[in-house]
């Protein structure tokens, strides 16, 4: 049992515990400490009344202030949206092909597009927009449907091969496995390889190409954008650049699809996406650009 006694030198009662001759004095708490403690208790009581605090079985107590973290987020988001409103209105008002002529707006659009790209486009085109087999690389200078701002905008709006959208991009390459002999397929694939400097040209392949392929891909194999027919004479291959790949594509071509983003994303976001994709380095057609961003007026901020 505790052995309480008065400690001689200090005149304070001990708590009665002793460890190896060391005793603990029953010194009262400092008053300031106690008051701090009481204030925290009072604070907690007020807090419980004002804010959501107690978890119950299916929900929690609400608090009389009606504050929620979701509500606060919604408020902050709408404040941020309101702050961006003027920018969005300006982008909404401008034709997409004139965006590049306004460097400030363009750079804002590129930044907004980069964010939207990371949410909506990276699943197919990759986080750096470098694509993969069957998914076009948006950084390079090869464009199936054109790389100007309006062309990119059109592609994003209406997608690729979207049924029910009459403006969607549609290209259709026949499956030549039912039309040509395997020997002919090999020949024409060899000829296609030779167009971009891989392997020797062959006359038989050239004839087959002229009869069957030149209609869409052009006599020189450089493709036709109005049909979305790829350029076969360059170093970029959507479905692979080996002869095997080319033969497979002649025999039973694959066709990519892309959603139409009109209706899924708002028009301003789609314009921003077009600006971002154009800025990745492969964009074409700068005729609208009148001055470079760094050469604008330089007033002290």
């Amino acid at each position, binding site marked *: 049992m505790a052995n309480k006694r008065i400690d001689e030198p200090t005149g304070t009662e001990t708590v009665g515990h002793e460890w190896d001759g060391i005793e603990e004095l029953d010194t009262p708490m400092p008053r300031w400490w106690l008051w701090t403690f009481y204030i925290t208790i009072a604070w907690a009581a007020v807090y419980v009344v004002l804010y959501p605090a107690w978890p119950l079985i299916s929900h929690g107590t609400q608090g009389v202030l009606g504050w929620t973290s979701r509500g606060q987020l919604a408020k902050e988001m709408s404040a941020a949206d309101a702050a961006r409103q003027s920018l969005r209105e300006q982008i909404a008002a401008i034709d997409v092909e004139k965006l590049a002529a306004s460097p400030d707006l363009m750079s804002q659009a590129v930044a907004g597009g980069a964010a939207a790209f990371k949410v909506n486009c990276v699943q197919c085109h990759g986080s750096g927009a470098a694509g993969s087999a069957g998914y076009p690389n948006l950084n390079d200078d090869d464009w199936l449907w054109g790389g100007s701002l309006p062309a990119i905008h059109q592609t994003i709006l209406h997608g690729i091969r979207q049924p029910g959208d009459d403006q969607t991009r549609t290209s259709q390459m026949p499956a030549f496995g039912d039309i040509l002999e395997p020997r002919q397929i090999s020949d024409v694939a060899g000829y296609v390889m030779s167009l971009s400097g891989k392997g020797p040209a062959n006359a038989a392949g050239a004839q087959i190409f002229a009869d069957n392929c030149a209609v869409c891909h052009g006599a020189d194999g450089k493709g036709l954008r109005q049909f979305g027919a790829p350029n076969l004479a360059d170093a970029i291959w959507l479905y692979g650049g080996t002869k095997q790949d080319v033969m497979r594509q002649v025999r039973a071509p694959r066709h990519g699809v892309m959603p139409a983003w009109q209706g899924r994303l708002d028009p301003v976001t789609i314009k921003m996406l077009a600006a971002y994709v154009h800025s990745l380095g492969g964009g074409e057609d700068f005729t609208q650009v009148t001055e*470079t961003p760094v050469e604008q007026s330089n007033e002290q901020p």
Partner: protein
Amino acid sequence: MSNPDEPKIEEGVVKTTQPVSSAVADAVAGARRHEPHEPARQHLPEKLYEPRRAVHNKRIDGPFRRFKWLVMFVTLAIYYGTPWIRWDRGPYAPDQAVLVDLAHRRFYMFGIEIWPQEFYFVAGLLIMAGIGLFLITSAVGRAWCGYSCPQTVWTDVFQHVDRFIDGDRNARMRLDAAPWTWSKALRRAFKWTIYLAIGFWTGGAWIMYFADAPTLVHDFWRGEAAPVAYITVAVLTLTTVTLGGFMREQVCIYMCPWPRIQSAMMDEKSLTVTYKDWRGEPRGSLKKARKDPEHYGDCVDCLQCVAVCPTGIDIREGPQIGCITCALCIDACDRTMAEVGRPRGLIDYATLEDCKREAAGEAPRPVWKTLLHPRTLIYLGIWSALGLAMLFALGTRSRIDISAAPDRNPPFMLLSDGSVRNSFTVKLRNMSTAPRRMKVTLDGLPGAVMWTSTTSREAAARSIETTVPADATAPLRLYIAAPKGTGEQPFSFHLVTLDKQAERDTAKVTFSGPGAGG
């Protein structure tokens, strides 16, 4: 001169006789003939702290007081006046001589403009200020504390307000002790109003360093200034009144770490305010001393040194932490010595060496020898070397800068003709006060060309010219196409200004590519 009516107030002195922990204190304590009363440490004090007793220091005139007036005038003039000095920097920069432009991350100081990446200049200035403090302390002791420390200056200002409203020492002590009357309440209210006004002016002057002063004053009074301006003024008003009006010498004695550090900075060759006890002791009133001149020293125990002390200490108890070496006690003591017809310097600036010498009957060394001891010279050397290095850096610093960051995702891109393309975000910085035409050139990377996000590849070339606005950073997106089969290799962007100065800078980067196999 001793006043028989004057109450003995030495018990009112804050006891801070705990010896300064250094050789100085030990040696001086040893040289003293009578030891100060040792504080009893055997039992715990009944109260946690000794309540503060107000210090009502007496007005005094003398060379040190006049020097203190001068320093006070100069430092306050610098503090309150500097933001109002104008400095024409042309159309692209603000016209305030000293301006900390936090919003645009610039620091202007007369002809010098500091960018964030040049902050080492400010760091260097701070280090110089630190070493300067060491230098001053090792040479002339706590001169910083005594004359130019803001706490000292503002406490002095507040004490003069006290004197102006309530009268000098005796009148103030009487008023303190007197019961509350309307007249006393009015006086006190008036006094605190003036304290608040001084505090407000002090806080107000501080914010002027962070924005254009005339505009800010205008906006401030119209309620249009930034909230941070009002908050800063409120906080600084409060701290000025608290530290200068309430706490005063307690800041020096209890709060400030500098006296503790200073005791380590000082040695037996540092000047300090000293009571020459071998000359003054045993002390006694003039009447007693005249009766028995053989038995008494020069100190007539008039207590004027205590009465004038702004921290309320008795210098005759030896060097102590409460002594800020403002030397007002020297003025007071010299005046008394003149009145009683004894030589001045019973309390005087002296080094410990001098004290020993003088106590032993030798002549003191000349002051210049004291000031030029090795420790002082070493500090002076370090301080000057730093200053010269900074001046050199300032004189030769470049006002342009280029930095380049490659895109990492993807690291390179194959183009339709087989060539390899890399993308870089290049930043061109123009730190001068006029727009400058600059040229970026590819250095290395044979056969490569570059273009920007606003020009097409048809316009690609080995170099790009652009104009960077004054005082700005221009981001530039550069695409570089190298011939087919180019592999990873280092190269650099070379920047040169197309004006007379032709300043240059280079950014080293690496080009990525698949190499011959790709």
